[in-house]
């Protein structure tokens, strides 16, 4: 599984959000090793649709959501919001577009600042937007640019390498100088002269200083400019601050109304709640407040990152119903990231299964849950508890072993290390998402038949036969497979 490709992307152009070949990698120290959190994931979202993203912990589903929000920005890949590539926007345009793309987090309490009032928390997006509408003085922009350039240089590998070498050489020269001086005899004036050794040491130190000089000079000049700008900035900001101060009372009244309306909409009584702080609310109420904060700029897309998994089951239903209602009344499209399969089935129009940073299977929830075609999806589905005492949970497709390390993911199909259908081919060639039947995409060389259903007993009964027949011939498992070459 662990497939790439974008065969499941719908070609019609009415997708609100379209993510192509999203890759997120986190470097580990300076060793050059990377955590491959998300590798080449594509997805799209039609207007009014809910896309469920499921997978076990560590499969990169949350990272995908955050990368779409650009916190942190993806390593590569395109995120198109209504046709505009978010990466191509400058910071102010990006800030504007954030209003159309919002996120709700897993831990409702942690996503609200404990020291701010509910009113301030919900108003924050409005305030940020409002403050942005006042142009900042040029000095502030320069200050920011100089800081960015300095940080960029400071993080540049070559600069760091150069400084390391220079320091090493300097130390070596110093050592040479000290040792040869100490080894020399005292002359008639009571002085020690290290002779050629000390001269060489001096020379080496000089070379080291010459190596470091441009970097040090640039850093000093940069820091000096930055400090001068930092001192000038408050002075040049005074007119803007005065303008903001004059406009604030009117704005605050407007904000109060909007916040009250947003809170009302999510079922939080505004009058009582606005002056309170987050700790005075339960988890479900706090999640409603998060939703109100996400809604207040009337976004087009909300990314829900496990919005209900930290909540009581009874409260989960309330929050899910609320999301459904809001989706209808606000024309929202949702990306619903969760590991609770039942929840995802209920809310989603389309489900994307992820494993170790890759997409396994994309389908509508009914088809996916009735007849999973990917071995990993089958294992996921069979992990859903069934309220039937005749079904023996020990016969479920339990996955053996642990999730492989995302630092060195398996070659080919990333699922092959835990897959009972894996063959040579799986380690050599990475499967690509391919269309099996109506809207059902699978990234697997040996997909399941699909007619054996998702129930525990029947799948368990027929799996032995599958292994035999599919080992030699991948295409024999499904008559409707549309084969796609790897890239």
């Amino acid at each position: 599984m662990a497939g790439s490709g974008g065969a499941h992307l719908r070609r019609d152009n009415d997708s609100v959000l379209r993510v192509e070949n999203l890759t997120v990698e986190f470097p580990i120290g300076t060793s050059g090793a990377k955590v491959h959190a998300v590798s080449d994931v594509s997805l799209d979202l039609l207007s009014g649709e809910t896309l469920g993203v499921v997978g076990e912990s560590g499969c990169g589903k949350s990272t995908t959501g955050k990368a779409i929000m650009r916190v942190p920005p993806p390593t590569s890949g395109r995120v198109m919001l209504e046709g505009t590539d978010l990466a191509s926007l400058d910071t102010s345009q990006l800030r504007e577009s954030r209003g159309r793309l919002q996120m709700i987090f897993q831990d409702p309490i942690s996503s609200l600042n404990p020291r701010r009032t509910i009113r301030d928390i919900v108003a924050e997006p409005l305030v940020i937007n409002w403050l942005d509408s006042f142009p900042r003085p040029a000095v502030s922009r320069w200050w920011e640019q100089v800081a960015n350039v300095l940080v960029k240089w400071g993080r540049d590998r070559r600069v760091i390498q150069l400084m390391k070498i220079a320091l090493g050489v300097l130390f070596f020269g110093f050592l040479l100088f000290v040792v040869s001086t100490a080894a020399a005899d005292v002359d008639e004036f009571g002085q020690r002269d290290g002779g050629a050794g000390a001269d060489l040491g001096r020379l080496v130190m000089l070379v080291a200083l010459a190596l470091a000089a441009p970097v040090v000079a640039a850093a000093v000049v940069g820091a000096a400019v930055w400090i001068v700008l930092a001192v000038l900035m408050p002075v040049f900001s005074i007119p803007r601050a005065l303008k903001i101060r004059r406009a604030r009372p009117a704005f605050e009244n407007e904000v109060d109304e909007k916040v009250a309306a947003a809170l009302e909409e999510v079922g939080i009584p505004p009058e009582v709640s606005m002056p309170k702080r987050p700790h005075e609310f339960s988890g479900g109420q706090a999640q409603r407040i998060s939703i109100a904060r996400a809604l207040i700029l009337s976004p087009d897309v909300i990314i829900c990152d496990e919005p209900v998994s930290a909540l009581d089951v009874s409260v989960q239903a309330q929050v899910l119903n609320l999301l459904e209602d809001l989706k209808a009344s606000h024309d929202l499209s949702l990306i619903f990231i969760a590991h609770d399969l039942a929840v995802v089935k209920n809310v989603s129009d389309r489900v994307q299964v992820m494993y170790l940073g890759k997409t396994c299977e994309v389908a509508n929830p009914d088809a996916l849950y009735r007849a999973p075609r990917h071995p990993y999806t089958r294992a996921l589905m069979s992990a859903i508890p069934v309220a039937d005492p005749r079904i023996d949970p020990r016969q479920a497709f339990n996955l053996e072993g642990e999730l492989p390390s995302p630092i060195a993911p398996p070659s080919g199909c990333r699922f092959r290390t835990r897959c009972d259908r894996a063959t040579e081919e799986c380690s050599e060639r990475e499967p690509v998402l391919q269309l099996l039947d109506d809207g059902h995409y699978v990234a697997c060389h040996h997909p399941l038949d699909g007619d054996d259903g998702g129930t525990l007993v029947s799948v368990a009964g027929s799996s032995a036969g599958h292994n035999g027949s599919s080992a030699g011939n991948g295409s024999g498992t499904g008559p409707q497979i549309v084969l796609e070459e790897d890239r």
Partner: protein
Amino acid sequence: MSVVNATEVTVTVAAPAAPPADSDDGYVARKRGFWFWAAAAWLGFIVLCMLFSQWFPGLAEPRERVGSPRIGPGADYLFGTNNSGHSVFARCLHGARISIGVAVIATFGGIVMGGTVGLISGYYRRGIDTTLSSLVNVMLAIPGLVLALALVGFFAPTGGFDDQRFLFFTVSPNTNATIWATIALAILSTPSISRVARAQTLVWSDRDFVLASRTLGARNLRIIIRDVLPNVLPAMLSFALIGVAALIVVQAALAFFGIGDVTATSWGGDINFGRDRLDSEPHMVFFPSLFMFLTVLSLNYLSDKFIELNAVKEAGV
């Protein structure tokens, strides 16, 4: 699609329960208690001395000869007189200005510098953190006394016997030396405060609400000031209060060693002047020490209480 099956739970949310009765007087009184107010009262008295001792009616000048030297405490001279026949009581009250003033201003400087460094290195991490942290480590490695000696010795040559003024306040004969001693103490207190701020910032900037602010498009400066700082500040302040207590002692130690303005009226200086008569006339050391002891104790007690009262609940569940 997506109707949540069998969970037609009506979305009703009860109004949040009434908060614990913070405003209830009995509740607050029980929480703060007698010693809180005793400590606060002592500090209030010390602040009064600091600001207004030079205008207290009937209070002797610190260098005014009120009687023969080394008279014991009694009805005539409340705390007795010192080696030069100055009133120990008056000097204790006047000494608050230098002792507390230097400590408080130095701590404030330490909070501003250390807090900025700590917030920046904790928030931005990576190279910025490495650079700033190593600078802080270098500062930690400098012996405090040597730094104070160097700064005061270099920038503030000795001299001056008449009290100089700053605004309305008489400070000390050599205000310059006092200012540089304060700057040295501020630099000395910076690294430890910066470490506290950095550690707290590391914790708080990992929270989801910081991420949420970033997804809303808030600038880093706004996130640091609005989201991180309010959560870091309590820890920093309560640490700084202990720092004030420590700096009063350090200022006394500096005066004791003759760094800064030796002729200034401060508790540490008086302890120094009286110490060679400790066996026969202990009152010259005892009363300034008592003032220092009570002040440090009150500050420590209040800072503990401050932590206790400001421990915000993070979650109600």
